[in-house]
């Protein structure tokens, strides 16, 4: 485990913790972006350049912006900053701690931590993967999942547009010429 890995791991986890504990939603979105960028750097550190850059492009570039848009469109500042945790928050925290305890126990006591990874740890250089190889693998062996993903992205786009469409019927069905009420304009 190198120093770079440790720094990136601390940065990522700190970003995640800050995203889940800060009170203002915009600050949370910023911390989440830090966590995503740290993860992208971790992928690069592990030798997965293509996945790291895709992570940077999709998460830091698109999803973070999407989350900021959603926060601003739902007036994220108006929620009471004193009440950010739900009434059952303590139970949720305990459940998360228990999950971490089980996962940590499983990782540290399994053969992965001692025997199985020991041979692989000797192999210090990252496996060489070119984008050409990735493209060939995607287009030959995994071409069916690729098409399914393409279909799913199309369906998701149509679904998101339909969901975010303005509800026209809820304005006033009796008076079609009445102007839409201002609170429906989002």
């Amino acid at each position: 485990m190198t120093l770079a890995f440790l720094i990136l791991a601390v940065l990522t986890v700190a970003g995640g913790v800050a995203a889940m504990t800060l009170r203002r939603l915009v600050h949370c979105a910023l911390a989440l972006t830090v966590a995503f960028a740290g993860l992208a750097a971790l992928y690069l550190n592990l030798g997965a350049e293509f996945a790291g850059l895709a992570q940077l492009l999709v998460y830091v570039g698109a999803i973070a912006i999407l989350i900021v848009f959603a926060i601003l469109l739902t007036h994220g500042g108006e929620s009471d900053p004193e009440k950010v945790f739900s009434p059952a928050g303590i139970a949720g925290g305990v459940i998360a701690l228990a999950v971490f305890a089980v996962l940590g126990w499983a990782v540290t006591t399994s053969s992965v931590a001692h025997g199985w990874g020991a041979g692989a740890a000797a192999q210090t250089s990252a496996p060489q993967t070119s984008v050409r190889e990735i493209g060939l693998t995607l287009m030959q062996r995994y071409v069916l999942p690729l098409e399914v993903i393409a279909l799913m992205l199309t369906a998701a786009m149509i679904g998101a547009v339909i969901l975010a469409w303005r509800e026209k019927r809820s304005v006033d069905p009796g008076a079609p010429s009445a102007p839409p009420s201002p609170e429906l304009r989002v």
Partner: protein
Amino acid sequence: MNPLAGCLLVSALLFSVGLAGALTRRSAILVLAGIELMLNAANLNFIAFWRFGPHPEALTGFIFVIFSIAVAAAEAAVGLALILAIYRHARTSDVSEITEMKG
């Protein structure tokens, strides 16, 4: 501790943080962000097993991460559109105040 176990521990920590956020926060947007963090923790596991596994040239975990990122992007888009629709209807994005499914 070898690098694989380190990766797995970081990933477990990130998953727990995301789970805690999804279970404890009131804002629906942050619940979605917690779910995204959990997905990312799983992706880190795939990359770690691909990197330190016996057959990295098969690219299995790597391709899985690419697909997983695509699924997460679709999920975030639909989820945020759902939150916007709920906000327009119920005038709140607080998950503990949205208590009825009837429109």
